[in-house]
């Protein structure tokens, strides 16, 4: 340690000069050429985006036009529309798609209705300490394992489970909710609620109090102020949240698998059984195009409603 100590500062200084000269020249060159700077900064993330996101989506779309040998399950690379034909001519798939969209819409509306007053209380009524506590309460479930949360709902809904115990104890009968779509709906609403509350909260927090006071000064009562002032200003937040509650419900298959019963056939489940179980990747790929198209339509409508105007 002591023997090298004497030489080190010298070496370091020497290196520094070289590095500084090298760095200096580079930074000068980059400063003179803004396009080089920009391309140097953008190339890694852009390459990542193109390779990982775009390329995999392209592969997915291409696969959708192939087919599998029904006996050996080997993929046969012959071009065909049979997968899409099967989706759009089989009543079962069409009703499964409709059921998925209906579920996603119901979950989105429910979460929006629950989130708005909650977020309003957080943003405009609660004291800072209460607000922090509520924030933790909302974010805490996001840190817990998805599966642990879903299985805890199995325990709540199951026969002789928590719900049965409470409702039965009050003498209100025995709800048999496990393995029904009602249970799936309840769990989805619970799972995605934070994704709705946070954007709505962010939107509400930014509404200036002066606007609400102005509305009240002009004689607007609670409902009128909410409807004419608050809601239009918060709409982008609600739509931002709805994009996530909607798309997350559209793609989830684990909750229907664990909580759902005989009619819990959602788009995600069809994709899951075709990839994980049956190895019919082409059909699954064709099915995966369906939620992409639905989300495309959803975003177009959201845009037409003016949700992205301010973005």
């Amino acid at each position: 340690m002591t023997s090298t100590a004497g030489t080190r500062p010298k070496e370091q200084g020497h290196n520094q000069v070289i590095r500084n000269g090298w760095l200096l020249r580079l930074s000068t060159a980059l400063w003179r050429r803004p396009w080089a700077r920009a391309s140097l900064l953008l190339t890694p993330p852009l390459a990542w985006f193109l390779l990982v996101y775009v390329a995999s989506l392209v592969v997915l779309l291409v696969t959708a036009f192939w087919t599998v040998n029904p006996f050996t399950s080997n993929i046969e690379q012959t071009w065909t529309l049979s997968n899409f034909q099967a989706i759009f001519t089989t009543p079962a798939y069409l009703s499964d798609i409709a059921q998925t969209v209906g579920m996603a819409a119901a979950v989105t509306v429910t979460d929006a209705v629950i989130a708005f007053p909650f977020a309003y209380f957080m943003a405009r009524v609660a004291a800072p300490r209460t607000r922090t506590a509520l924030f933790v309460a909302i974010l805490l479930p996001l840190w817990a394992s998805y599966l642990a949360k879903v299985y805890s709902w199995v325990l709540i809904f199951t026969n002789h489970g928590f719900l049965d115990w409470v409702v039965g104890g009050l003498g209100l009968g025995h709800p048999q909710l496990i393995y029904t779509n009602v249970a799936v709906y309840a769990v989805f609403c619970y799972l995605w609620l934070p994704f709705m509350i946070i954007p709505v909260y962010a939107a509400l927090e930014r509404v200036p109090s002066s606007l609400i006071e102005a509305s009240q000064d002009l004689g607007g009562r609670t409902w009128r102020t909410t409807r004419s002032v608050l809601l239009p200003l918060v709409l982008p937040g609600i739509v931002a949240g709805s994009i996530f509650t909607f798309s997350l419900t559209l793609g989830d298959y684990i909750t229907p698998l664990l909580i759902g019963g005989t009619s819990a056939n959602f788009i995600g489940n069809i994709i899951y059984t075709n990839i994980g179980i049956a190895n019919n990747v082409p059909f699954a790929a064709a099915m995966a195009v369906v939620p992409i198209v639905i989300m495309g339509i959803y975003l177009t409508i959201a845009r037409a409603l003016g949700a992205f105007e301010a973005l």
Partner: protein
Amino acid sequence: MQIFTRRRTAVSAVAAGFAALSFTVAACSSGSSAPAASGGTAGSGSSASQQAGTAGLTVPTANLPVLQSVGKGEGQLNLIAWEGYLDPSWVKPFEQQTGCTINAKYAGSSDEMVSLMKNGGGGQYDMVSSSGDADLRILYAGDAHPVNMSLIPAAKDFFPAFQAPSFNTVNGVHYGVSLQWGPNVLMYNTKDFTTAPTTWSVLYNSKYKGQITVPDNPIQIADAALYLEKTKASLGITDPYELTQPQFQAAVALLAGQKPLIKKYWALASEEISDFQNGNVIVGAGWPYQVSTLKAAKFPIGSTVPAEGATGWADTWMLAAKAPHPNCAYMWMQYISTPQVQAKQAVTYGETPDNAKACPYMDKLQAGSCAEYHANAPASYLASISLWKTPLATCDNGQTNCVPYADWVTAWNTQVK
């Protein structure tokens, strides 16, 4: 107004930013892990006509050289198995004897096993304990490797039916070593059924609506066909795996009518066990494994092979085409075929061993178990069980009007469920 617009921009930006973040979180959490479910493919019905039995097919791996002598173990063995097939009571001694550590992957259905073998590229896994309905699909896909049976001495003591069964041996080439077989049984809660049911009709009886569970598996159509074979002679069903279109539709219609009565199509054996324990179901179709597990937990469970007979399975440890640990795989095949280990698995799981010498060892483990699982008289017992096999377009009589498996899967997903 100008200020206000900018504020709104900020709101949206924050919302969008959080949204992007939350999306990542959600994507990660839902990608974590999920239990296996059964079910299957669909939409391939149109190409089903391509499959004209196995007549024109050859096994791509038939000429691969087989191992001539078992060398030093590689230290690892990656196995795909049915739940309950890798019990510590026989896995632990094997690991100690050979130094091969077993890495288990459990599959819930035959379709999943075919899929896992294919996606492992035949090189990720060493072996799979697949049933007769999956074996041919695996080996014709080129995912299985020929096996040198002379390296597995204990297999000489197998009952004749399992020496070279057609579901794992093609043109005299073995692709694995036969394991065990058994029936799919009718399970019932003995508190709700004070007299034991003797017929599968309880599963189609609206009296038990919302309290029935059956496997989530297209091969269930054979269970319906077997029931119709015995109860509706006019259909002329002779083999539940070889159905003409009208016979097939009758079976599918029976199952579609059963759906409103079903509480849950179970995918994993553990699901069925917990559903019986929670009282979510009181009667259903299952495997002896669930029965023995529930009995071990002192649950009032009964099981029977009803008067109509039952479907069943005959399993094989198939060798993967590109097994990374072939020496350990051969050691496993040698070990699992010995009468002692066969007896242990038979008693623990509740099935019938293929090794004829296992009987005395079974009785030693559990008095009377040899007779209970019919290990001493399989020939007569075997006749009452319709063992799983892959439904092919070519029927056994050479005609090509049978409904192939791809259509079974499509019907299960779009007409039954």
